[in-house]
């Protein structure tokens, strides 16, 4: 196969064919970045062969995933569906099915886990720490190439791979390999490699920082090197010091499976703006139940709660609250979410989108016993609700989530279709 990385400016970098992969990686750190190409759209093309070769878009309201055929029209994640219909009338637009995508991702990550003792997974990509595994796998570049082949053979999905000595550079290298390629950068070439990359590719540079830096004439990573770290700190706070190191290709954060997620978010949009209070409360209950069940399955409790909505006219609103004890109890979380939600209802207008997000997790520990009688009564009620949750979780673990519909969520039974995973929502969130 022809190389997709040519302009390496004398560095020891390479792409396929792997058989000329050169010397072994040796004792250097090795991080492999695996990225599933056009993830949701690719799965839809697998499920429905007639979609192969056609522009396919998955999303509701905005594009969540676009096939490469759709990308040829300039369609990207975040493009509105009305814009998609305008620039590509023949595009096939699908609402998507989160549980199916999750099943495929888990299969890909299971294969990756066979290669890497340490794996960090995200929605559609993963970082594999392969440091010191060459004795087990043999030549690392060939082992990574074999992983890509196995993913293709066993799932039908195309993945792009980037291998480097740290996670940031591995991700940057992967961009050169997309779609479906494999690129690697040998140890020692990091500073030269990142120098010519656009500033937006540097880890920690989002839209706002990139815009500011471009105004200052910084367009490539090497331009950032002219700034003293203290100046970058003035501009961007503590992250400025990290950027100063990253501008030389240095990134020290280890690959590690996240012990606690940053947040768990469950949200949906409505086919038509929803103004019925009972229907909104039912959806809020269902989303709270899903988020709380996910937290319980991980053995964690949230302290932070955020409820957000989007009005029919596109305006958005959100409010936050701090949760007390037993925040992972469905009824406790729903009660708090409903309170926050009431504070959001300040307009006479239908709701287009509704979401519940919990965060600031801590492992579940024994709860402090209440000192006062009133508190004790509340604590006893919360404890009962917690025991009920355990029973419900056990039943769902055995028979699937839809085996049991609870409380106010019952209201949704006549309103929404359901499958083995529960109610079928529009734009179901895929946060892990």
């Amino acid at each position: 196969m022809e190389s997709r990385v040519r302009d390496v400016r004398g560095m020891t970098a390479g792409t396929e064919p792997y058989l000329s992969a050169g010397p072994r990686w040796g004792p250097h750190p090795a991080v492999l970045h695996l990225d599933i190409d056009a993830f949701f759209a690719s799965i839809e093309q697998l499920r429905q062969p007639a979609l192969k070769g056609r522009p396919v878009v998955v999303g509701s309201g905005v594009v969540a995933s676009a096939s490469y055929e759709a990308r040829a029209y300039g369609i990207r994640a975040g493009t509105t569906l009305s814009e998609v219909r305008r620039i590509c009338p023949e595009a096939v637009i699908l609402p998507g099915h989160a549980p199916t995508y999750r099943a495929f991702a888990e299969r890909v990550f299971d294969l990756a886990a066979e290669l890497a003792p340490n794996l960090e997974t995200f929605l559609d990509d993963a970082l594999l720490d392969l440091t010191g595994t060459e004795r087990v796998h043999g030549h690392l570049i060939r082992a990574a190439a074999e992983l890509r082949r196995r993913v293709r053979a066993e799932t039908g999905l195309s993945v792009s791979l980037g291998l480097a000595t740290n996670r940031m550079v591995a991700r940057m290298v992967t961009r050169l390999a997309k779609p479906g390629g494999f690129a690697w950068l040998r140890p020692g070439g990091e500073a030269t490699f990142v120098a010519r990359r656009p500033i937006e590719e540097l880890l920690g540079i989002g839209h706002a920082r990139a815009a500011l830096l471009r105004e200052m004439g910084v367009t490539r990573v090497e331009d950032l090197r002219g700034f003293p770290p203290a100046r970058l700190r003035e501009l961007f706070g503590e992250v400025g010091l990290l950027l100063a190191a990253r501008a030389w290709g240095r990134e020290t954060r280890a690959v590690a499976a996240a012990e606690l997620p940053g947040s768990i978010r469950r949200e949906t949009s409505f086919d038509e703006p929803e103004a019925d209070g009972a229907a909104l409360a039912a959806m809020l209950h269902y989303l709270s139940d899903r988020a709380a069940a996910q937290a319980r399955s991980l053995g964690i409790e949230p302290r932070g709660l955020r409820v957000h909505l989007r009005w029919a006219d596109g305006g958005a609103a959100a409010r936050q609250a701090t949760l007390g004890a037993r925040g992972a109890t469905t009824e406790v979380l729903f009660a708090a979410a409903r309170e926050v939600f009431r504070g959001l209802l300040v307009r006479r207008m239908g709701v287009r989108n509704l979401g519940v997000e919990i965060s600031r997790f801590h492992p579940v520990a024994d709860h402090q016993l209440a000192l006062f009688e009133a508190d004790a009564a509340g604590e006893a009620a919360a404890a009962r609700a917690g025991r009920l949750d355990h029973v419900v979780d056990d039943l769902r673990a055995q028979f699937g989530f839809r085996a049991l519909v609870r409380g106010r969520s019952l209201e949704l039974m006549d309103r929404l279709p359901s499958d083995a995973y529960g109610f079928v929502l529009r734009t179901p969130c895929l946060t892990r």
Partner: protein
Amino acid sequence: MRWETLDEPIKVRADFQGGDVSPLAFRRGPNRIRVVRVNTHWVDRDGRRARYYFSVTAESGDVYQLCFDAGDLTWRAECVMYEG
């Protein structure tokens, strides 16, 4: 492209070999539908039961999504996808 939800129990003739399962044909009402291709398959482990999903192309060209529940050993036709 159009999806029609079926969610109906079906009888399936399948090949169970080497830990893998592959549907060969199924009966839907009076019709026997032969599977000409398994387009893709995936396993969902939501809950302790594994559910095996298959996207299959029938002789007619229609694409069905079938589900085998390893818990109670039943098959369901979940939906059919038509062009147009």
